[in-house]
């Protein structure tokens, strides 16, 4: 079988070769120094994925990827940067880009590979895809009513007792995400929320929430899946962005997602519109990777 191909665009020779060296183990890799060079390639549309740095002389990474997307909608695109990803969230929203890999020290190769793989295969759902080879799912829950949510939360905290840096933060993150899934994601045909926050709720059989806990040698994580898929990529970006800019200080809208992004090392949001939404959080042991937090939102 022919190897899938990836184009890497970065003005920093060392970085682009480093990424190429690594990905060549599994893919056919071509590199370019800047957007101009990449755009001139006649085979641009044949790549399965284009990975581009943001800050380059000439065309910026997001402009470049936007052009690629317009010309070749089937090509998957990912940005990467060594800069603060928070500063690019608004840009990501306006350019329709939702995956920004962060260049960390040490470089997070396993994350890079996971992202590239899941994007090319279009298989983004499922926490186990984001685990290393030694990773495993340790527990699964299904929540059918609000009364169960609290018990599950305490159970997860106990499960990760040894791993968790700050149980307060994890508790908060779990509360926010489960609350969102329980009350806000469930909507009636008119698009209004069916359940009032913190009220006692009995979900319908098709509204259940699935929670999966997993860990590997580097990290531990939780995946929360609702069966609604009402969240959209633009909504997520909008909510995160306004909180980054301090515009959401006075209200709660989007606070959960923002806080989750602040307190968890990784936040991955997978959306299958009108089918399901998966929110995955990961925390690395010993703050393994230093650098900024990436942005991963996959909308099928």
């Amino acid at each position, binding site marked *: 079988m022919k190897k899938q191909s990836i184009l890497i665009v970065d003005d*920093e020779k*060392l*970085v682009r*070769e*480093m*990424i190429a*060296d*690594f990905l060549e*183990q599994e893919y056919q890799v071509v590199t370019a120094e800047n957007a101009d060079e990449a755009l001139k390639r006649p085979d641009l549309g044949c790549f399965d994925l284009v990975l581009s740095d943001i800050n380059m002389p000439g065309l910026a990474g997001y402009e470049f990827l936007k052009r690629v997307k317009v010309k070749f909608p089937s090509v998957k695109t990912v940005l990467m940067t*060594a*800069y*603060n990803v*928070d500063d690019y969230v608004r840009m990501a929203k306006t350019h329709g880009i939702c995956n920004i890999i962060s*260049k*960390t*020290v*040490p*470089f997070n*190769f396993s994350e890079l590979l996971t992202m590239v793989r899941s994007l090319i295969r279009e298989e983004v759902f499922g926490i186990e895809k984001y685990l290393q080879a030694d990773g495993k799912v340790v527990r699964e829950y299904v929540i059918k009513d609000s009364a169960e949510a609290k018990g599950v939360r305490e159970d997860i905290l106990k499960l990760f007792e040894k791993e968790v840096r*700050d149980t*307060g933060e994890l508790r908060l993150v779990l509360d926010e995400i489960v609350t969102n899934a329980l009350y806000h994601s469930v909507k009636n045909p008119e698009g209004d929320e069916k359940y009032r926050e913190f009220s006692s709720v009995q979900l319908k059989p098709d509204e259940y929430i699935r929670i999966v806990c997993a860990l590997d040698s580097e990290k531990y994580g939780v995946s929360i899946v609702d069966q609604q898929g009402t969240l959209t990529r633009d909504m997520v970006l909008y909510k995160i962005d306004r909180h*980054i800019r*301090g515009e959401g*200080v006075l209200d709660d809208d989007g606070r959960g997602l923002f806080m989750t992004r602040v307190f968890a090392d990784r936040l991955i949001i997978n959306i299958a519109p009108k089918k399901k939404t998966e929110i995955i959080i990961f925390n690395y042991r010993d703050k393994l990777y*230093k*650098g900024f937090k990436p942005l991963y939102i996959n909308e099928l």
Partner: protein
Amino acid sequence: MAVDRGFLFIVPAIILLLLLLYRMVWIHRRLAKTRNIAETLYDALNTSFKELFQDLTEGHDLDWTREILYESPPRKGDLDGLISSFKGLLNRQVSLFQSKNRRIRELNERILVSKKQLEAVFDILNDGLCIVDSDFRIVRLNRAFAEICGQEIKNLLGAHSHEVFPGLPKNKLTGPLQKSFETMERTSEIKFEINAPDGKRYFSYTTFPISKEGRVEYVVELFRNVTVEKKISDQLIRSANLATIGTMITGIAHEMNNPLSGISGCAQNMLSMPEVFGMNDKGMERVRDIVECANRAETILKDLLDLSRKKESQFVITNIVPVIEKSLKSIHLNGFDRIRSRITMAPEVKPLVNCDPARLMQVFINLLTNASLSVLEKEGRVPREKDYVPRIDVLLGQDGSYLTVAFTDNGIGISSDKISYIFDPFYSTRPPGQGTGLGLSICSKIMLEHSGRLYAESADNKTTFTVELPLHKPL
């Protein structure tokens, strides 16, 4: 004999006339004499009044007296008139004296009040004030000066002002004081520091000469306690430094991040795929060092970015005690379990502050880690039999509208020549690779975000870092 008879009449008549004439001359002379006396008396009185007035009024009211004298001049030759004229004059002078006297009494009272007011001002001053004579002996002092000396006012009178001032280095200020006596000029703002039991105190010294007839008789010495000012100004300098560094490093740190991730990533590849890169064992060892160094550099960058971060803190009204407790639990140092730590709170303190708990925890963890390392190092230095117990005390108190959290340890302490540098970015006493030297800079920055302060004192084997935060005022 008619002639004879006529002659007989004429002779006595002539005699009588002569007698009369003589009497008239006599009377005239007596009158002239009396007039002379009166005029002499007038002159004498006039002169004596003038002199009296000159004495009493130092010449100021002389013109006025003359005016009165010319207004109603005594009728010459008329003694009664003369006397009544002088009597009138005398009465007016008496009333003048009385009014003058009243005024003097009034002025005297006002001077007394002023004196009392001045004394009150003298005593209310928080700065030590004393007046010394040319032998530098105290002739007057205020309460603050006595308090600095830790003695009663009466015990200090007559003492040498520089000898009774505690901790003042000998002859430090005698030169300027002597100069003030000699040149009549004030010396301004000589700064000096003393070691008090509760830490260093800073003073500013000024003299004000009081001179009389071209000679300095006394000198006022002012000892202003500028400890708080000094701490605030130190903090301001620190924040100004931080602001400049902040803008600079954000750019640098971002730019460094990119090549650093490349260096690290390449080295990681070489380690994970040695055969691809033709690596031998020696090469692998070096590459491992590269990964390690890149890691260290990134830690510094991360701290630098933390220092310069502009992001808004998330403020909530928080009870600070659980935040401290949580910070204590978050410290995972080898030997931390041997340290006796304790949180105590002064009575009636409500430890509620409007803060970003996560950021404050960063400060507390930093201070507690520093304290722990200090006590553990001390523990390693003293022989076991000496019964050294490593201790960290956290004391919560209130200072005006501020909550104070003092972290005191009995560790190795910070020497006075080093304590002024500890807040400088990159200042570190630890070996390379252990700490970036940015911890306290970041703490300072976080305290600034909270409109609070952070300062350090170290003396007598005790080191205290105090965090001051504005107390939450309930509506």
